[in-house]
């Protein structure tokens, strides 16, 4: 029995049809081990959210997983029927979205909302639902759960709404939580509280977390394993210490280098354009984000992921192999 709770292999996701096919995710492999937090980091448009949606099979109607496999708990997600998926969503895998306002029903008391998953998935007597809801509210840090139970989403602040979403997400005690930029819209003090709640749940239940983010600070504090995504592909992966101590891909270096430090005094901030493979000793290899676009119709052919040290994978781009797209 493997230690891997979620294992994605060679996943390809495309949108559109005919001439207008757009490959959002190409040849993506990642895994989340039991009891661990894996971070999928990248900027807008890199395909990280699409990847997380495909795990729950909730891609937008014009998108589809073309090939590859997504195994969760030794079951193949891509071959599951809608009915089987309904047993998994919210029950074994739950998701926390970025936009707490859009994720809550404005016309329903939050206490009722957090028990909806329980009503559907677990055999719990109606009379007990309120007790369970109150205890969930307490778990996510509300000191007055009975008062919060009767509130509507519009009566709560952004951080409180995000905590309601967490209460909802952990209500059925899922094995995997997918958190898609759960704190992007929040202030730092609230961000800290929300991320700590997710981390606490993970430790308490020995659950796993797949964290989607663009913030390397968050990755450094909460992740065990890191996947850096660019242009629909994983460009570098490894455990969090390796990625921070020995990043190789220019894009990874750029994402780390562009965080302003609060301790050393301000040299210039670096960006992805300031790094090349040359300095890491990979001659003739180039990473050129500006040419890697559908617009210019040219991109440098990426090599497959190369294991540069045990457990540390990097995707190099070969300057000699230029492909003209469609």
């Amino acid at each position, binding site marked *: 029995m493997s230690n891997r709770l979620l294992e994605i292999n060679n996943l390809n996701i495309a949108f559109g049809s005919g001439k207008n096919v757009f490959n959002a995710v190409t040849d993506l492999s990642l895994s989340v081990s039991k009891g661990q937090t894996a971070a999928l980091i990248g*900027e*807008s448009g890199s395909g990280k959210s699409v990847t997380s949606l495909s795990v729950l099979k909730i891609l937008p109607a014009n998108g589809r997983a073309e090939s590859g496999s997504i195994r969760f708990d030794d079951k193949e997600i891509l071959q599951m029927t809608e009915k089987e998926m309904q047993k998994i969503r919210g029950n074994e895998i739950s998701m926390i979205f970025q936009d707490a306002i859009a994720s809550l029903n404005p016309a329903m008391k939050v206490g009722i909302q957090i028990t909806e998953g329980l009503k559907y998935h677990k055999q719990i007597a109606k009379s007990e639902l309120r007790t369970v809801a109150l205890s969930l509210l307490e778990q996510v840090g509300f000191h007055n759960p009975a008062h919060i139970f009767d509130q509507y989403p519009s009566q709560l602040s*952004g951080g409180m709404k995000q905590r309601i979403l967490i209460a909802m997400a952990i209500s059925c005690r899922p094995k995997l939580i997918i958190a898609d930029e759960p704190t992007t819209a929040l*202030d*730092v*003090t*609230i*961000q*800290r*509280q929300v991320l700590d709640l997710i981390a606490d749940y993970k430790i308490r239940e020995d659950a796993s977390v797949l964290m989607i983010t*663009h*913030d*390397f*600070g*968050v*990755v*450094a*504090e*909460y992740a065990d394993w890191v996947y850096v995504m660019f242009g629909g592909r994983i460009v570098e992966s490894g455990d*969090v*210490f390796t990625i*921070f101590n020995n990043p190789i891909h220019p894009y990874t270096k*750029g*994402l*780390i*280098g*562009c*965080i*302003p*430090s*609060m*301790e050393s*005094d*301000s040299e*210039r*901030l*670096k*960006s*992805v*354009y300031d790094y090349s493979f040359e300095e890491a000793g990979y001659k003739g290899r180039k990473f050129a984000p500006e040419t890697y676009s559908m617009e210019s119709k040219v991109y440098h052919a990426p090599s497959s992921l190369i294991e540069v040290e045990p457990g540390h994978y990097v995707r190099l781009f070969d300057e000699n192999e230029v492909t003209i797209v469609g």
Partner: protein
Amino acid sequence: MDKHLITIQNLSKYFMTKTGIHKAIDGITLDIFKGETLGIVGESGSGKTTLGRTIMRLYEPEHGNITFDGLDITHMPEKKLRPYRKEFQMIFQNPYESLSPRLTVGEILEEPLVIQRMLSKEERTKKAYNLLEKVGLPKTSYLKKIHEFSGGQRQRIGIARALMLDPKFIIADEPVSALDVSVQAQVLNLLKDLQSELDLTCLFISHDLGVVHYMSDRVAVMYLGHLIELAPKDELYRNPIHPYTKSLLSSIPIADPERRNAYREPIILPDKPLYPPQLIHVGSDHYVSANMINIKEFEIENNRNLIRN
């Protein structure tokens, strides 16, 4: 010669809401020195944007006054104010909403000059091309419209527009928070270069403490409409005194996995005091809200006599 470019005294701006008066900013007293960048940090709702807009005279203040280069502009009528407007410009947060989609970039850049009736048509065009180059955009941008640009490029256009009138003072309100991190770095570098090249005085508003540290000389912390702590950058980040400042600093994720289990200050979010706090000087140009520290205790502990401001 006065070294203050802007002096703000006891500035307040209230908004009427359904539930009563909302004191967005209350009793802010602040000086901005010539040539410095003053960073303003605070969470959403702390009043930092309202402060910026009130200084710009986009809002009418309830109390207090604003002095710009020795001139009281607090209640100056709009007509009289207009010639001074070119001295202080603003860079907005959202480059998708603050630039007109119907105008070409050239028209956007030249509009402030047209309003101020400055320069001839040819000179205006020349200046626009000049600034496009300064902010790192190609000359061909002049004839394009906004939808053809990415977020980072749009913010460069926003910066160029703010500089068209050769202002002395710039308010940048969250100029990079809508941008991806790698683009953010480029825009920050550009702002910093331009600032030292043009000797601008800058009020830099952001919720991101890292970004504020990178950009600023001094940093002011706002909390629930009050100014609660003000100090030179390194002093503030090393020796925060106010419990909220401490919470804020310890909440920032540190981009170093080796240090993830280091001690963290517990997060304390104090209630809003009824009256705006008085700032007291605790040495090293460091000011902190007097409501929050027990002055006697602090004096004994630090062997200092506090001077009330």
